């Protein structure tokens, strides 16, 4: 494994490569999507450290291999946090580069935006070994094509990010959660939609089928949280029995939702994104196949786990497709991951453009070949 400790050295590795490279941070997400066949591994793990933190400007920069946990510790010391609440499903070792490269976001994504909404700039090395920077450190920037967004979520297939800059926000003074009990999935999502369609700025909206609970989170100043949870609880009382959780209980609960603790992680795990109202029917349609899960993002994020076989995978994809949505195969044994569509296939016209864009970054096709789609 190659672990260059400067951007220059990393660029040199790429220029010298004479075959495919497996690109990774600490490798915590190598089970997602498709496996990469490469003789050599290039890791950003030695490119580590926070390079800029200006709390008064809501901005932080860190080298790509900086551990998320180190970033969160530094932010917490200044009373701030990552806006999109990245899941810690993959342990404490995950890097900020990996979070950006996979665009992984947690519960706050529903109203606060995803990682892709908060990436302000990146430094990266493309497949030709050129060191490039896009975006910057300011909150508003429309100068040129938004390549920083394109690299976010590109799973290391276009360029290797060496440093990322992102927007952060203060941690709210208080957090409150409205728990609605005894709801089936349809009622649950209806309650979440009512909450998200209220003036009370809900920052988390999940439904747990096993517990038959709909959960809505409010984060703000303490008096606001009190006022808004009470108003919202009164408004949603018609949906079921209501309980209000305070800050500590809320934080623990939403950490568990963020980390998918309510998912019975069996052989295969999928993440589907659909319109919120489509979530319940997907849960119901897949239950007979032994697929279980829970809903986040107001019902639109369907987290699923079930048997790792082609038939089940096809049924999951079909459910996402029928709802006009999309899917990611988050975890499965390698033989399955190698043969199935880990992401929805592309229409022909888009596939042609994608291939040209990919070649424009990585003409030799050496960065993570096959990671997203079969070559």
């Amino acid at each position, binding site marked *: 494994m190659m672990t260059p400790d400067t951007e220059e050295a990393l660029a040199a590795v790429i220029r010298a490569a004479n075959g495919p490279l497996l690109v990774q941070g600490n490798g915590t997400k190598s089970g997602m999507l498709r496996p990469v066949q490469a003789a050599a591994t290039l890791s950003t793990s030695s490119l580590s450290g926070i390079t800029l933190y200006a709390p*008064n400007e809501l901005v932080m920069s860190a080298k790509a291999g900086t551990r998320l946990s180190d970033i969160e510790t530094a932010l917490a010391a200044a009373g701030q946090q990552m806006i999109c609440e990245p899941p810690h499903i993959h342990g404490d070792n995950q890097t900020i580069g990996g979070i950006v490269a996979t665009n992984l976001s947690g519960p706050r994504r529903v109203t606060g935006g995803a990682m*892709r909404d908060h990436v302000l700039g990146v430094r990266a090395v493309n497949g030709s070994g050129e060191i490039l920077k896009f975006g910057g450190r300011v909150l508003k920037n429309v*100068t*040129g094509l938004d390549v920083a967004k*394109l690299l976010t979520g590109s799973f290391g297939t276009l360029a290797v990010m060496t440093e990322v800059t992102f927007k952060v926000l203060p941690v709210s003074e208080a957090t409150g959660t409205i728990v609605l009990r005894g709801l089936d999935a349809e009622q649950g999502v209806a309650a979440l939609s009512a909450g998200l*369609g209220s003036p009370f700025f809900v920052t988390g909206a999940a439904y747990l089928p096993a517990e038959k609970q709909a959960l809505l989170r409010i984060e703000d100043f303490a008096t606001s949280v009190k006022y808004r949870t009470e108003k919202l609880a009164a408004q949603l009382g018609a949906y079921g029995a209501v309980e209000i959780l305070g800050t500590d209980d809320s934080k623990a609960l939403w950490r568990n939702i963020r980390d998918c603790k309510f998912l019975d992680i069996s052989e295969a795990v999928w993440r589907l994104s*659909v319109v919120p109202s489509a979530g319940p029917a997907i849960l119901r349609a897949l239950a007979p196949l032994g697929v279980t899960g829970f809903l986040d993002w107001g019902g639109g994020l369907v987290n699923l786990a079930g048997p790792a076989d082609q038939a089940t995978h096809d049924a999951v994809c079909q459910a996402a497709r029928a709802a006009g949505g999309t899917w990611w195969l988050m975890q499965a044994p390698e033989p399955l991951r190698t043969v199935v569509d880990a992401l929805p296939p592309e229409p022909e016209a888009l596939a042609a453009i*994608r291939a040209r864009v990919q070649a424009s970054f990585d003409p030799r096709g050496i960065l993570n070949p096959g990671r997203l789609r079969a070559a």
Partner: protein
Amino acid sequence: MLQPKPKSNVLEKRAEIIAGLKAVLPERAVIGDDVSLKPYETDGLSAYKQMPLAVVLPENEAQVVAVMKFCHLHGIRIIPRGAGTSLSGGALPLADAVVIGMMRMNKILDVNYADRYAVVQPGVTNIAITQAVQDEEFFYAPDPSSQLACMIGGNVSMNSGGAHCLKYGVTANNLLGLRMVTIEGEVLEIGGKHMDAAGYDWLGLITGSEGQLGVLTEVTVRILHSPEGARAMLAGFASNEVAGACVDAIISSGIIPVALEFMDKPAIHACEDFAHAGYPLDAEALLIIEVEGSETEQTEMLARIRDICAAYHPVSMRVSQTAEESAAIWKGRKGAFGAVGRISPDYLCMDGTIPTSQLPNVLKRMQQMSDDYGLKVANIFHAGDGNLHPLIMFDANDVESFHKAEAFGADILKLCVEVGGCLTGEHGVGIEKRDLMSVQFTPAELDQQRRIKTAFDPDWLLNPSKVFPLSGLSAAA
């Protein structure tokens, strides 16, 4: 302004091309006579004018496809156009180009409150989306000052911002899906009605791409429920430095107001003359701060903000007591460009972004430049996110004065980059900042962007001569 040489083979065949367009479109959708073409010769950057070869006004996506196929086949350049309010010359025609105007595709196709989205055609104005959903107390968040006129297709192409983007984000943060016709006439569906797309973030790449990658034919936006209420306050300060420090203190305290706007003295005077909003004329700098929520929440938040401001010895401080008062405060701010236009009919509106802590430094150096160039400048600033709008006043009847204004503007933008910011926060590069791109990007970075453009538009027929510097073309080959 240096423009690419018009393709002589295209100019010579103008009559044939217009006839050809009429063969694939309804007669009423093709404009070919000079009198009717006149309104399309410029956009919000009115110092530049160029009559196009022809204008087409398609009424549906199939007609857009037909135009693209026709132009692609014949190697004709295309300039997409929304309302033409671009301040960077993004919609400026070329002599050998067909302008494809989207204003007739102006229907709202679908609104869904449970799933909180609206599907609209690109020619729908920004304000019309909010108007379509406000009976249900919903709104579309990004609110550029030009929102009465500008169209959602233009907003997406420019990734436009607004006064409230500190809380709600810019256009890119409020989109779910797009339909786009490529130069070859293929229809791409990007995203959908759900959040996030598997695979590359095409939505993110296309947003802000200034008509370089394709023509948008449909946009799906997120809609939000309106807050219970909103209230603005004004705080005037004795210097730009003090006002800048106060902005820092507000953000550091953990309060993110929904809007945090800054005006310097010339801007305060211009806006007050126009809006009579009660802006303090004795202040050197003014902050407009808005918060949202219930009456009690507003009161509490404003009390916290007043406490912070008080520590910076404001020369005046006033919390609006009524909806009318808040409206007047915003009328002044949103009408700021027009207000400056009343003092000086000709002005250039710049749009750089800086790290907010650099504000006092940048304003000081800008004042120095203003003295050196002998041109007045008024500053309006989205202080919360560092987006600066210097308005440089000049006299259009004096060519020298215009050239000086352009040079002054370029110096300001270079300063923005020098202090860690960028050339444009929301108005786009267009033609105006094209040749400054090399201040912010290295040749390799520009070439990477050019190669992406080429992947979508191999012959560079879409809005050419914008965004990328004309010099250095050979490097991209």
